[in-house]
């Protein structure tokens, strides 16, 4: 009797596991589907696309669409492909990430180990700023960039991304440094180290994990940004996201879906690459910011 009961329980257990795995696999397919579609569409010919369907494999693989997306597709007025815009993005993303990370690290350091009256209030002020919809600063910023002479320029984009990225980078470093015992800084002060020396010799060497998280997070956010790109730049200075949107939304001529898909993948490659290589830091960035927020 007991054996049959056990077998039944064990059996339902097995069925349960199967159901769980089936659901997980189904979900995985759902998430992978668009990636697969993008890839396969990008290597099909237009005839192939028009004749077949989303999940049909390409009759023959061709990289023409990729070449076109990179160097000759029309992204608005110019028809030079995404190549120029790709490098545009690189030239402002890298400095913006580095600068906002650098400043965020110092801010986090001050907020945890050199607190003074009002420093916590400053932190709260900074954090509230995270929540605003950027629409509410676009108009004044457009004016300001014009006045400063950096409208529609790389420095302008760097400036904007640093200004609005500071809250996040500060949050990352502050949350990380909070768990470093302050007795470490006290001991260093007694030993004779000053503000910068303590940061350079003691705190910074402890920071690689959070630096990586911060850089990955900022890189992803800034590279993928569209709003600031479309408002604060135009024409040839545009980042790749804006160029991609223009490319995919041109209403003239024949719709070249394969070029659209190739262009989308090109735009996605850097952040996807970072994700594949350093995914766990990405997750840490997400949960670190979110849990406190």
């Amino acid at each position, binding site marked *: 009797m007991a054996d049959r009961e056990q077998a039944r329980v064990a059996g339902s257990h097995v069925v349960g596991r199967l159901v769980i795995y089936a659901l997980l696999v189904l979900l995985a397919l759902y998430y992978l589907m668009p990636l697969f579609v993008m890839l396969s569409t990008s290597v099909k010919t237009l005839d192939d696309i028009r004749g077949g369907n989303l999940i049909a494999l390409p009759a023959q693989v061709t990289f023409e669409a990729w070449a076109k997306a990179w160097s000759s597709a029309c992204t608005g007025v110019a028809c030079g492909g995404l190549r120029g815009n790709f490098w545009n993005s690189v030239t402002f993303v890298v400095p913006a990430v580095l600068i906002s990370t650098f400043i965020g690290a110092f801010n986090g350091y001050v907020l945890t180990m050199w607190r003074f009256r009002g420093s916590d209030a400053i932190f709260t002020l900074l954090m509230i700023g995270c929540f605003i919809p950027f629409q509410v600063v676009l108009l004044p910023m457009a004016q300001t960039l014009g006045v400063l002479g950096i409208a529609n320029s790389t420095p302008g984009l760097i400036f904007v991304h640093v200004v609005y990225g500071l809250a996040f980078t500060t949050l990352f470093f502050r949350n990380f440094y909070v768990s470093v*015992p302050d007795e470490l800084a*006290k*001991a260093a002060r*007694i*030993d004779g*180290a000053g503000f910068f020396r303590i940061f350079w*010799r003691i705190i910074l060497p*402890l920071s690689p994990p959070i630096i990586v998280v911060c850089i990955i997070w900022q890189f992803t956010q800034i590279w993928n940004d569209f709003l600031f790109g479309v408002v604060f730049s135009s024409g040839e200075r545009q980042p790749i996201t804006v160029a991609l949107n223009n490319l995919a939304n041109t209403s003239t001529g024949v719709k070249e879906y394969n070029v659209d898909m190739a262009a989308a993948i090109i735009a996605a490659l850097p952040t996807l690459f970072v994700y594949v290589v350093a995914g766990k830091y990405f997750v840490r960035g997400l949960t670190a910011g979110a849990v406190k927020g």
Partner: protein
Amino acid sequence: MSSLAVKNVRKVFGNVEVLKDIDLAIGSGEFLILVGPSGCGKSTLLSIIAGLDTATSGDIVIGDRTVNNLSPKDRDIAMVFQSYALYPNMSVRQNISFGLEMRRMPQHQQDEIVDRVAKILQMGHLLDRKPSQLSGGQRQRVAMGRAIARDPQLFLFDEPLSNLDAKLRVEMRMEIKLLHERLKATIVYVTHDQIEAMTLGSKIAVMHGGEIRQFGSPQEIYDQPADLFVASFIGSPSMNFIRTEVVEHLGSVGVRLQTAEETFVLPVHDAEKALRPWIGRDLILGIRPELITDSASSQHFGRNVHTRNCKVELVEPTGPDTLVFIRINGEIACCRVRPELAGAANESMDLAFNLSKAVFFDPQTEKRIA
């Protein structure tokens, strides 16, 4: 080595007065213990002496310099923290020499000092390891090494043994004491453990609620606590506090005690002068467990011994002696007796009361009368 004087130091955080007019002084080479329960202000006082925190008012004088405005690095002090605070990314050698490096000492001198310190603390084989590769006791030694290497005027210890297990704590206590003798260092040591306080210090400041309740040598504090708090805080098991009435007794004074069997009066010749005004009133008698013991052990007490037969409520063997609990004046009192002479629960045994070292407290002010 220099002396230390804390003059009328006050510290206010918001509207809370964390330190209320602290005043004390020790000479060169003394070992000062700041002891008290958590929240009494001892760590704050240490921070202020170190310069990590500033006093709201008052002065700190190290040697002949008033150091109020000096940053920690200029006060010529070294500190050992509860969590050791070793620099995790540096080797033991670098940890020890960091302070020397900050003072731009030439490399060969730094090496010399590191080696000397390593020899004193027997850490030579650990010099190239990182803190994460060390045990708790080893880390503690490195923290001390870092302090010694600086050759400061004043050593500050902030509960350095609290993170160690009991056995290690006893070992390290000895090491600290040996170090003190060897270096003739002036030390300020914060702890909440009264055993550490008694065994290590040459002077003890018992703190509570931001004030110093008593400042004196360990034996003074033990035998003549200034008030109820100090009496209850120092000594384990804690002193017995018995509310009793002072009565006229055979031309002198005595205290009335009541056990399950009888009511009797014990004379207190030694404190006669102080207690005369209290005749007819209640006060609190403080008598340590070792002063209520078996007849054999009380031989050396002298003349102030009075033996009574009392009923034992509870027995707790501790190994070296046995704690016997009796009921006096409605309260449980703890007595230390030799294990082989202890009675069993619910039996009676003869207990000798030694009142020459008993102390008496005013129930209202809680201060010691005699």
